[in-house]
């Protein structure tokens, strides 16, 4: 390919120039020249820490841009990296998207900025989320420890006075709730992948094992099998509402009228539940996920995100300065005040956070429960680098089962694995 050789020559000629430019950019902050940082974020709280940062660093101006949520942003970032222009200095990633960018070298390794010293201040599982093959590629900025949001009034009506502490109790309570009437269910499920994964996660299943570019997928390990069989039983016995999808208008109605007794979701639900179910104010409470063994305190994760520095970013030093500021340093407090839930232990352990009663949740000290949920998240979970694609096709596979009952969850997961194996190998990974 002649064209390619020419392009390579051209880039070889350009590299020294870029390096020079990079040097001047790097020192700009300290010798008085202004640095303009661009941050891509769909988390509205990040902006809150900009004024404080700019006051401390008069030479750095920060511009926070919403370049779309989740995969819209990833597409935009991929395009910018491919085009070689318009790459932001910091970008937001859901935890499962970190390997997708880190493994092909699109993210900067934060090791040289002394990031290792911060590890002790982060929730262990969140730190694990930003670590890929032993290197840290981002700092956790918000977190979704799995928790159970239950409607106390509905459970009481069904004769359940204590929220289910184990999955066995959850199963029994589900029957009691459904006995209230045809519309009453303990929860809904129309194929929520992230819930199923959190259930597997908590049960000790580790279906994805990633080592460099090698990925091993196995949905038959003990923990996975246990979790999947349990949920299959819940579905088979029609104890879940399979007509209502989370985030739909139906869902809001059911949350308001109390016909859905519980939600097992990320802790971030606290930020949207009061808006979605204002009529249920005072009825909801938060608890840890039901346990597989009585007395355990094992948790899982459902969502959360981090910020990383693209390898092609221009102002990496300044970017790291701001990154540390709003995910770990003084920039945290305005964000937490604005409702951010951050996996930073000094914040989670502070009496301020732990003892604040929440009126929507009947003056329960929600922060304390979620802090405990965060600290109990089981470690060792990994996402494959092509998870973003994988989750997009999961919906293709579940419709039939959820509408007709034909097939099984285990069968769906096996088919999903086959598709991932094919795609992953095509993409240059070694997947089995």
């Amino acid at each position: 390919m002649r064209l390619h050789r020419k392009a390579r020559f051209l880039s070889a000629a350009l590299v020294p120039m870029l390096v020079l430019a990079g040097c001047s950019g790097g020192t700009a902050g300290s010798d008085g020249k202004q640095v303009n940082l661009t941050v891509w974020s769909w988390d509205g709280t990040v902006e809150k820490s900009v004024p404080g940062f700019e006051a401390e660093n008069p030479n750095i101006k920060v511009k926070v841009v919403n370049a779309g949520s989740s995969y819209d942003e990833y597409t935009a970032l991929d395009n910018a990296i491919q085009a070689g222009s318009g790459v932001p200095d910091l970008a937001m990633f859901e935890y499962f998207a970190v390997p997708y960018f880190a493994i092909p070298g699109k993210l900067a390794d934060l090791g040289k900025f002394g990031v290792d010293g911060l590890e002790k201040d982060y929730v262990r599982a969140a730190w694990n989320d930003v670590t890929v093959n032993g290197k840290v590629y981002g700092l956790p900025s918000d977190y979704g420890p799995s928790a159970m949001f239950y409607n106390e009034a509905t459970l009481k009506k069904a004769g359940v006075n204590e929220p289910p502490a184990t999955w066995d109790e959850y199963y029994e309570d589900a029957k009691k709730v459904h006995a209230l009437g045809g519309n009453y269910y303990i929860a809904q499920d129309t194929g929520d992948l992230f819930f199923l994964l959190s259930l597997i996660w908590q049960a000790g299943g580790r279906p994805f094992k990633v080592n460099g570019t090698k990925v091993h997928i196995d949905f038959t390990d003990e923990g996975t099998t246990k979790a999947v069989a349990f949920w299959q039983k819940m579905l088979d016995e029609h104890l879940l509402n399979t007509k209502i999808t989370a985030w739909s208008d139906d869902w809001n109605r059911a949350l308001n009228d109390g016909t859905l007794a519980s939600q097992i979701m990320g802790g971030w639900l606290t930020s949207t539940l009061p808006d979605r179910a204002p009529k249920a104010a005072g009825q909801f409470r938060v608890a840890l996920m039901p346990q597989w063994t009585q007395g355990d305190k094992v948790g899982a994760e459902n969502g959360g995100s981090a910020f990383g520095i693209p390898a092609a970013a221009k102002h990496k030093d300044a970017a790291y300065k701001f990154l540390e500021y709003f995910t770990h340093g003084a920039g945290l407090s305005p964000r937490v005040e604005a409702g951010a839930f951050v996996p930073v232990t000094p914040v989670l352990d502070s009496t301020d956070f732990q003892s604040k009663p929440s009126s929507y949740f009947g003056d329960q000290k929600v922060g304390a429960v979620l802090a405990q949920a965060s600290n109990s998240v089981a470690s060792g979970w990994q996402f494959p680098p092509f998870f973003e694609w994988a989750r997009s096709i999961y919906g293709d596979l579940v419709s039939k089962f959820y509408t007709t009952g034909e097939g099984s969850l285990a069968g769906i997961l096996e088919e999903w694995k086959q598709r991932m194996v094919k795609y992953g190998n095509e993409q240059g990974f070694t997947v089995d």
Partner: protein
Amino acid sequence: MGHPSRLDTSAAATTSTDPTEQPVPARERGRTPAGLAFIAPFGMLFALVYIVPILYAAYLSLFQQKLIGGNTFSGLANYRKLVQDAQFWDSVGRVFGFTLIQVPIMLILAVALALALDSRRLHGIRFMRVSIFLPYAVPAVVSTLMWGFLLGVKYGLFGSLDDALGVNLDPFAPNTTLISIGVMVTWAFTGFNMLIFYAVLKAVPHELYEAAALDGASEFQVVRRVKLPALRGSLVIAVIFSIIGTFQMFNEPQILPSMVANSGITTHYTPNLYAYNLAFTGSQQGYAAALALVMAAITIGVAYAVQIRGLRNAFDH
């Protein structure tokens, strides 16, 4: 891709019913630089927005993008893969089936409405003409949302109907979603086709009707012997338009899944949706480009076959 020019020529060919009226062929007029200058603005735009993108897509389709290993030249590998891709053929089969059933229903409805409007026996023709055409002016995104609410079983009109009749029909179950989409598309495009037919009927010379009346033809005979033959040419155009439209179906299956869970809409529901997902979620732009080109070739092939067949029949009469 590629349809506008094809359609223009077919439109010109079908509307001139008498072969002797054909204009003098271009080559006999000779080529002059002045003529070229006149078409240059068009030619440049045409090359820029039409030829260049196709060539670029063809170029892209020869590469494979990998997360590990980057962009590599792969020759025709994308095309070979496409031929064996069950998901691709699933989507192609779906739009073929959809076209075979939805297009005839829609066109028969449109012809019937056009004939009714043309019958001069109705009051408020102008109002009906506009109101039947109006859905065409509603963006597909909006109409999909609207129909989603209308047909939704939980909170929509259909839910109330189900309750009232004591039945359990779900327009968005995996087996019924395509029918619902057919209803949406029919609603949106019947008026457009009706307007084409109505315009053609309006152009039928009055003398023909007078002659038919003198010969004692009944209203039905007038429809069969005068009106329907007049519609034949425009029917071919409408069929081609509709085939192109349904082969490119995208908005409805793209939006519905966010409203209804487990409607059976997959990421490869239609060829366009599949290409979109391949390019933007699967980061396989080369493969998506190959798919787009193959789909364009299939569409052009089908449209061309319809055109040739339709025209032959038109000239037979």
